[in-house]
Every structure is written in C-alpha cells, then in structure tokens.
C-alpha cells in the first residue's frame, strides 16, 4: 500500500516547502511507457515524492483502484459500466483525464507492395470471421491469390477492445489470427511473413518503421500529425488516467503530480511514440483537476 498520508507542508516554517509522500498507480501496460517517462521526469523535479506504477492491465488496475490500493489508475480504454458500479459501491469518486492518443496502426510486411491503402470496409471484410479462408485477392482481384496471415493483440488487451469497438462491432475476429499479449511478438511475426497483416499500437510501428509498412486508412497515412488532428480516423484511441478525488484532496503531492502529468503529457507522448492530444484537451483536463476541491 503506497497510500499512506502525504504531508505537503511538513516544512512549513520555510517558504518553499518540500513535497513528499507515496503515490501508487497501476493499470494498462499500454499507458506504461508514457507513464514511465512522466515518472522519470517527475522524480527529477520532486525528489521526495515516491511514485510507483504497476502494469497489471486496465482491469487489474481498476481492481486495485476500487479496493483503494491505488491513487490513480491507467487505462487504455474508457471505464466499463461494471467498474463504475463497483467504484460507486466502494464510494470512490474519480476524475477521468485523457493524456495522449495511441494510434492503432495496421501494418504489413515490407515486401508487401500491394496493400498500401485500405478502406474501413476492406478491414472489416478481412478481419471478421465468416467461415472462409481469406485471400488478398478477395479484397482486390489484382492482389496475389495468397492466404492472408493475421496477427492481433491478445483478446484481453485494450487495443483489441478498441479494434473490436470500431471494426468488429461484436462479431468475432478471424479464427486463424495469431494472438499475443506481447506486441513485440506481433512485430516479429509480421516481419517474418510476406502475407502477414496485423495491428498494434503506433509506438510499436514507430520503433520498427524500417522493417514494416503502415497501411493508410481511407488514404490517410498514420503519423503524429494525422493522429493528433483526428484525421487518422477511426484508428486513434485516447489513453486515460483515472484519479481518485479523495486522494487528490488529501494529498498535496498527488495534485502536484497530476498537474505535472497534464503539463508534460504532450511532450512525453511524442518522446515514447504516442501522439499528443490537441492543446484544448489538456486545458480541459486541467480544469477538471482544478474543480476537485
């Protein structure tokens, strides 16, 4: 438990007091890289505030958040109704903060010189299970008559959830797809197979640009600009931090840290391969934070 009391003004005799305390967060591993960057920077600024962040997944994070074990929870999807209910039951009030976009990127093998662009409908046709074996030529007759090899994030991931929401719409994913919780594994898989296609977070594409091709969606190519502007639609999803109001009121350090998060998320998102939100979103978040008094 890292939520033992934080004493903001212990050195109140001095003018510039030193913040201290323990802050605990947990949640999505997708949010982890940006969170790590933020924590790393914050540790330089406030040496005595000890922030620890786990990566138990969005659900696991909420579980702890509900139990009152954490001060904030990272999520790669919006909170679910079940979780809301449990939070209500536990009497935990929270504030939802958006901190960055993760561009969900559809990628193909470097040697794939045909699939440069796909429409949302194409994607749907490819990825929804309908009992047939899918070939590239099914999408466009000029494309090779070879079986498509699918790679996708594990079904228990926020990325998958999001894909589900925008593409599958509660139909099932192609059964032949190779699923992995580890996105690096997907990268490796797609690199190794000419007929492969897959999707994962933009950060993983960003780190492997040299060896993978990203597919444009409806002629919009994924890059930080198109994602930030929302043009790369509907494949950019927001990443969230849920913070406990009670803890915010109680812990000076938490408020300080959250301010830091809002102020620096844009920069850190760029740094670790995510995409910053429009400035207005951060201002909105700031307002929300300030309203918790």
């Amino acid at each position, binding site marked *: *438990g*890292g939520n033992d009391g934080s004493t903001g003004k212990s050195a109140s005799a001095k003018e510039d007091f030193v913040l201290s305390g*323990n802050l*605990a*967060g*947990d949640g999505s*591993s997708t949010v*982890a*890289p940006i*969170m*790590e*960057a933020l*924590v*790393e920077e*914050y*540790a330089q600024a406030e040496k005595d505030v*000890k*922030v*620890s*962040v*786990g*990566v*138990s997944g969005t659900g*696991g994070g909420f579980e*702890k958040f509900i*139990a009152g*074990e954490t001060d904030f929870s990272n999520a790669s999807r919006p909170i679910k109704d079940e979780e809301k209910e449990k939070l209500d039951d536990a009497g935990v009030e929270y504030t939802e903060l958006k901190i960055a976009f993760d561009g969900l990127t559809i990628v193909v093998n470097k040697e794939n010189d045909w699939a440069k662009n796909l429409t949302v409908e194409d994607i749907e046709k490819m990825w929804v299970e309908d009992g047939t074996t899918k070939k590239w030529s099914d999408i466009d007759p000029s494309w090779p008559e070879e079986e498509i090899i699918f790679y996708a994030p594990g079904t228990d991931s926020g990325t998958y959830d999001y894909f589900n929401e925008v593409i599958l719409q509660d139909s099932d994913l192609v059964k032949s797809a190779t699923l992995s919780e*580890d*996105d*690096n594994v997907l*990268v490796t898989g797609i690199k190794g197979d000419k007929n492969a296609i897959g999707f994962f*977070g933009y*950060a*993983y594409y*960003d*780190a*492997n640009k040299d060896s993978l091709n990203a597919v444009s969606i409806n002629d919009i190519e994924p890059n930080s600009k198109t994602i930030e502007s929302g043009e790369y639609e509907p494949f950019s999803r927001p990443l969230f931090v849920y913070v406990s109001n009670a803890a915010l009121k109680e812990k000076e350090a938490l408020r300080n840290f959250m301010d830091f998060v809002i102020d620096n998320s844009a920069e*850190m998102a760029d*740094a*670790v*391969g995510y995409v910053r939100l429009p400035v207005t979103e951060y201002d909105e978040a700031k307002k929300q934070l300030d309203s918790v008094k």
Partner: protein
Amino acid sequence: MDNNLLIKTNRRIVKDSIMKWLFGTASFLLIVLIAFLFYGIGADGVGRLNLSLFTNFGSRFPEQAGLKAALVGTLSLMAVVIPVSMFIGICSAIYLEEYAVKNKWTAFIEMNISNLAGVPSVVFGLLGLTVFSRALFLGNSILAAGLTMSVLILPIIIVASQEAIRSVPDNLREASYGMGATKWQTITQVIMPSSIGSILTGSILSFSRAIGETAPLIVLGIPVIIQFLPTGPLSTFTALPMQIYDWAKRPQPEFADVASAGIIVLLVILVTMNAFAIYFRNKAMKKLQN
C-alpha cells in the same frame, strides 16, 4: 581360451560401450545446451553491461535504463524471504525429523508439505494476493511478496533440511545422548552444526528459485515503474524478473538488449549462488567424512 565365451563376452562388452557412449552423449548434450542457452540469452546484452545499468533507475531511454530499483528490490525481497523461510523451514524439519511421533497429524503435515511443493507458482501468486496483499493489508509491499515467496520455497527448504538432518549419522546422536545431553542440546549442539552445511545448500538453491520466480509477482501486481529505493518492509518495490519482463515487452528493439543485460545479471547472481551452494555442500560432506 574358450573362443565361444570370449566372442560372446566381447559382444556384450561392445554393447556396453555403445550404451555408455549414448548415455554420455546425452549428458554432454545437456551441457552443450546449457552453454547454448546462456550464449543465446546473454549475447545481446553484453553491450549494455556497464556501470549505468546498476546505478540508474528505469528510463524511457534504453541507453539510460538501469536496474537499481530492481536490484535493490530483489535484495530486499530476499532479506524477507531468507530469514522467514529458513526459520520456518528448519524448525519444521527439526520437528518432523527429531520430535514427530508417527501419527495422523504428522503424516498429514508431511503429505501437506509434499503437496505444497507441487503447487504451481502462479497459484502461490493468487494466495499471496488474497491473503498477504488483501486480507493482511500488506499491498504489494516487500513483505507481502516476501511472504508469498517464502511459502513458495518453504517445502523445498523443509525437505532439504529434513534430508540434511537425516544424514547426520546416528552414532553422533548416540554419542550425545550417551553423555546425558537432552534432545534439544543434541539438536542445537550436534545435529545443527553437523547438518547446517547441507541445509544451506538446499536453501540457497531454493533462494535462487525465489529470485527468478516471475509469475507470483505478476499476479501480485508488483509495480515496475519506480524511481526510488524501498525504505522498509512495507515499501513498494520492483524486482529483477519483473523489470526484465517489462523491458522485453517494450516497442524499441534497444530495450531487448537491456532485457538481455538484465538476464545476464540475473544469471550471474544465480551462478554465484549455486557456486556457494556447491561450496557449502563440499564443506558439509567433508565435515561428516570420518
């Protein structure tokens, strides 16, 4: 010489040599495999083995990422695991070997220990989460993880200690009792000094298991993003295998090298511990060799 017998015997000897060669090759292959494994895992990480790996906390920059928190965390974890598991383990072994009368309860305890030894580590994680983290309000502290790991290796320590105590020759016990020593005196002054070497051997091997176990830590939800060192047993922390697991999942390929470097560090710790275990074993064996 009788030719027939000679030929038959020679044929049997050839068969024996073939089998020896076969068995020997199997053993040799195993060794090669280990070398291969070490090389395969470690090769990528050698480049990242520098001082900053040990003095830095985790970082978003692969070249700056370090193990400081994980290393200290693992050491702190062991600071809980070693005394707790050894105390309970040795006490149990002494009880079972020296005091227990064969009744249903001790038979049940023995059965229970052997079963516990076979419980998958991930299940121990679930135990730790429910009992230590939640019911005892220890959260994901060093203490919670330490107790979980202690329970996990406890059966190994008990069994190893039981064997060590059993291998103390009876004539030493006889000598001690014959002098009028009580049971407890015999245990503390004869049996323990004679068996502590082997007990340490078994314990060290089980500690190396505790150092490398990942699944229970994952289930406990041990954090990986930490920029500070633990301050006490109730502090949150991270541990080597968690850190390695996390790095290995990062998008940037450079992090894979950092993970490899972390694995090298972990393996070096294990090899060192095994070396100590072997040292203690040899010493213990020498001690009882009369």
